[in-house]
């Protein structure tokens, strides 16, 4: 079980905290079972979960964690809550996997769960959005320092404004704008009509314009 500690492959990695460690050989690290799991498509991976194959659900999480986290982050506007919510989403997905019939893609299904988890959570908790100084990881190479600051401040302001929108507007806007779901898929996810979804996106954008005001010309 020491595969995480098999430091025998060349190729040193400089970690952020100034450590140099040697990456384990990914091929050697993966056993035969997980190699086969990685080759599975979505329906087979779900089936593998339902058959109780160890690691199958881990792989689903690995493939979708970024999208789920980002969706949650847009909803609540801060890392802590987004990370708790993401965990809830996957736990809920795990419980409901036996009901996943594959009518939609796994990612659409996970979006639906995410929205419901977020809507349930935000209704009991006021959003705590990030402070401005948390803005990070922006490619600044082609920007002047003042452009960079403005861009960062604007991003923080937009994210905070999104997280303050009324729930249905927020859900519709996030799914449409950042997760590329169709109006129909969103309507199915939140239990409303296509017309209502479009109206929600419309009002979300109007409110956003009001909240971020001077940024929009």
């Amino acid at each position: 079980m020491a595969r995480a500690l098999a430091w025998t492959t060349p190729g040193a990695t400089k970690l952020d905290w100034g450590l140099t460690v040697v990456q384990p050989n990914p091929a050697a690290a993966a056993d035969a079972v997980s190699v086969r799991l990685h080759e599975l498509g979505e329906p087979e991976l779900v089936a593998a979960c339902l058959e109780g194959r160890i690691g199958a659900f881990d792989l689903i999480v690995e493939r979708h964690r970024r999208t789920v986290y980002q969706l949650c982050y847009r909803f609540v506007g801060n890392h802590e809550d987004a990370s708790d919510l993401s965990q809830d989403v996957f736990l809920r997905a795990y419980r409901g996997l036996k009901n996943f019939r594959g009518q939609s893609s796994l990612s659409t299904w996970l979006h639906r769960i995410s929205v419901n988890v977020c809507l349930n959570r935000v209704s009991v908790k006021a959003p705590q959005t990030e402070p401005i100084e948390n803005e990070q990881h922006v490619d600044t190479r082609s920007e002047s320092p003042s452009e960079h600051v403005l861009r960062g401040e604007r991003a923080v302001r937009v994210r905070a404004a999104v997280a303050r929108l009324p729930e249905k507007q927020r859900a519709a806007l996030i799914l449409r704008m950042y997760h590329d779901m169709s109006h129909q898929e969103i309507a199915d996810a939140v239990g409303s009509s296509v017309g209502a979804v479009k109206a929600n996106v419309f009002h979300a954008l109007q409110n956003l314009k009001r909240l971020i005001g001077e940024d929009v010309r």
Partner: protein
Amino acid sequence: MHLNEGQLIDLAEGTRPESAEPHLASCARCRAELSELRAVMSVAAGVEVPEPSPLFWDHLSMRVHDAVAAEATRPRGSAALGLGRASSLWSWRVLLPAAALAALVAAAAVSIRSPSDMGGGGSPAGTASIGGVDSGVDVARLVDDDPLLSLLADLAGELDWDDVVGAGLTTSSWSVDRVVLEMSADERRELRRILSEELTKS
């Protein structure tokens, strides 16, 4: 009759061509509304979610894995899917291959090992260099006193020292406490929880 919300959204998103709404050409108000919608969409679309710490993704996977495993090991009849691996340290090892765990183990190991063993300064055997400063501390006692260090020391026993040294690891610039300090509060909490869980097992 002005364009309604749905029509404006379809035009703004480009799913419907402007030519399909002849009213637009004759109504300044609807044109203004459409252009404002497009402007705010373009501002919002360019805003990314801040990228969390690189350790976060595996940390999230591990949290989910543990939650799912805890659920799967509940009495039969509940939602068990058979994902029974509940060992949290196992998760750390598998999920954090070359990052946090290896770094921690290596850091602890190098810190705990006598500097003279590592070709470092001439401290008497049995003392440790913690935090890059020769502290003269009794390693055995230190390790016994801190369950976290003791577990890391156990894990460090699995390392191949030639590789560690070959990889350029030295005691001079870093130490386990520095590595632990560099982790987020969340990561530290989680590591502590898992390590203490692991320790109470044995």
